[in-house]
């Protein structure tokens, strides 16, 4: 059996500036201003009518829970960052698809206030030497957090730019010593209908499962993510541990991961099972392959306002130079 080779980046390729150690300056001032505004809105009784206003206090709660931890320290990594202005914290954390909290875009920020992202542990299973249960701290400890500004493209044709904090997944996976039968990696989200009210209705076969081919998982762009905008992930963004695969549609970037399993066969992934003709296993961003019910040629960049930017979608979400070689010889129309 051929030995799998993983692309590696030399340390010299990472040109981080030591001066840019976190925490970033995303102000406590705007935080408290928002809290004050939310209190004002509630006082005026407007909150009763306002899904948006209700979202704010719980978004603040979610953040103060994370704030009880020491803020993450990290280093910016311009080598793997795009040169685009990131969306605001608000734009990233109040408009989410996280069906475990509900189907509406505002549900995750409104309903995730009581979710407990810590203590947390992850089960490592399957084709690897070092399987077992690891605490979140065990997983993170040997690694330095990097900030990477990535484009994020949802299959629903909207997009945003997010400064994530994380660790290259390959560095973490390598520690578990996957064997030669590890051809795929399967990820599973926490199953807990008490904390995830959305799991009480069976729109998806819970728990949420996603998967990558091992070479995709080992690609230096694939980020095991714990934070954004210089903070720990808020609950609505997949706390405490999620995947970010920037060249794939957002649903591949699974949230609140409790299990990582190395497998020989392609994992059965949630959206692919729910609607195989609409959501492929690969789900690479591809403007030339439309969703059966809508076009993928363009996307709306969030935060552009009412007449905001409708921009062209790029092959592999703009990461073609980095990842297109993974799919050489693969018919991307068939394997969408």
């Amino acid at each position, binding site marked *: 059996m051929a030995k799998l080779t993983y692309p590696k980046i030399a340390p010299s390729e990472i040109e981080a500036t030591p001066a840019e150690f976190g925490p970033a300056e995303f102000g406590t001032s705007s935080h408290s201003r928002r809290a004050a505004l939310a209190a004002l809105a509630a006082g005026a009784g*407007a909150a009763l009518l306002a899904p*948006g206003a209700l979202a704010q206090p719980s978004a603040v709660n979610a953040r103060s829970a994370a704030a009880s931890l020491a803020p993450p320290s990290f280093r910016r990594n311009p080598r793997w960052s795009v040169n685009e202005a990131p969306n605001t914290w608000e734009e990233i954390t109040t408009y989410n698809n996280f069906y475990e909290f509900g189907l509406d875009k505002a549900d995750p920020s409104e309903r995730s206030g009581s979710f407990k992202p810590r203590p947390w542990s992850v089960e490592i299973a399957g084709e690897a030497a070092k399987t077992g249960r690891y605490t979140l701290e065990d997983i993170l400890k040997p690694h330095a957090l990097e900030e990477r500004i990535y484009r994020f493209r949802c299959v629903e044709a909207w997009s945003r730019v997010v400064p994530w904090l994380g660790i290259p997944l390959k560095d973490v996976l390598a520690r578990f010593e996957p064997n030669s039968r590890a051809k795929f990696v399967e990820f599973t989200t926490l199953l807990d209908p008490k904390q995830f009210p959305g799991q009480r209705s069976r729109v998806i076969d819970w728990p949420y499962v996603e998967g990558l081919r091992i070479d995709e998982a080992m690609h230096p762009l694939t980020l095991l993510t714990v934070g954004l905008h210089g903070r720990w992930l808020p609950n609505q963004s997949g706390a405490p541990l999620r995947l970010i695969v920037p060249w794939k549609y957002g649903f591949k970037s699974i949230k609140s991961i409790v299990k990582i399993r190395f497998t020989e066969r392609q994992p059965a992934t949630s959206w692919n099972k729910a609607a195989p003709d609409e959501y492929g296993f690969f789900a690479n961003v591809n403007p030339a392959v439309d969703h059966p*019910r809508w076009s993928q*040629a363009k996307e709306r960049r*969030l935060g552009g*306002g*009412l007449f905001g930017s409708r921009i062209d979608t790029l092959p592999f979400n703009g990461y073609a130079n980095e990842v297109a070689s993974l799919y050489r010889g693969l018919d991307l129309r068939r394997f969408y």
Partner: protein
Amino acid sequence: MTIAMDPRRARRQWNQLALLVALLPFAWMTSALFDLFGQSLGPNPSRELLHSSGKTALNALWLTLALRPLQQLNGRIEFLWLRRLAGLTSFAYATLHLLVYAILELALDWSDLGHEIAKRPFIIVGLIALIGMIPMAATSTDRAMRRLGRRWQRIHYAIYPVAILAAWHYYWQVKLDTTEPLLYTGVLALLLSYRLYR
């Protein structure tokens, strides 16, 4: 406000009240558009406007269909007085829905339109439903009713196919969870079968 005894005045007053209710969704959209009163359309404002205008059009259409059964079950003639306003409200929000789609979602990029329509057939279904409403809206005045006589009723039977198309349009575009469109379809089935079997 006390409702007048004179039926013509009472009818006018009921309609004024209903008009206020009909304008509420529009008032919400406007205030959220300008971030007033703690309201917000969120980071994807055009999508939010698209969904809220479409949903309001559906609600008003379903209400229009429910008013006759309500009157028959409950005996209050007032329900029938509101049918015109409910129907016109649905037409107005459906038109807004199309405008939001064309101006904000498509950004009037007509070169995209062909591609979009080919890829999103539910758009055509919605468009046919809206076109089907035009003759009804155009003949909604008292004068048109008098002039058209029995033909008026035939024109307004279009509400049934229009509602079916609207339900189809809604069902076809949801991503995965079809609960709500199925609920609307169920209510519509009830409203239509009531007319068949009563």
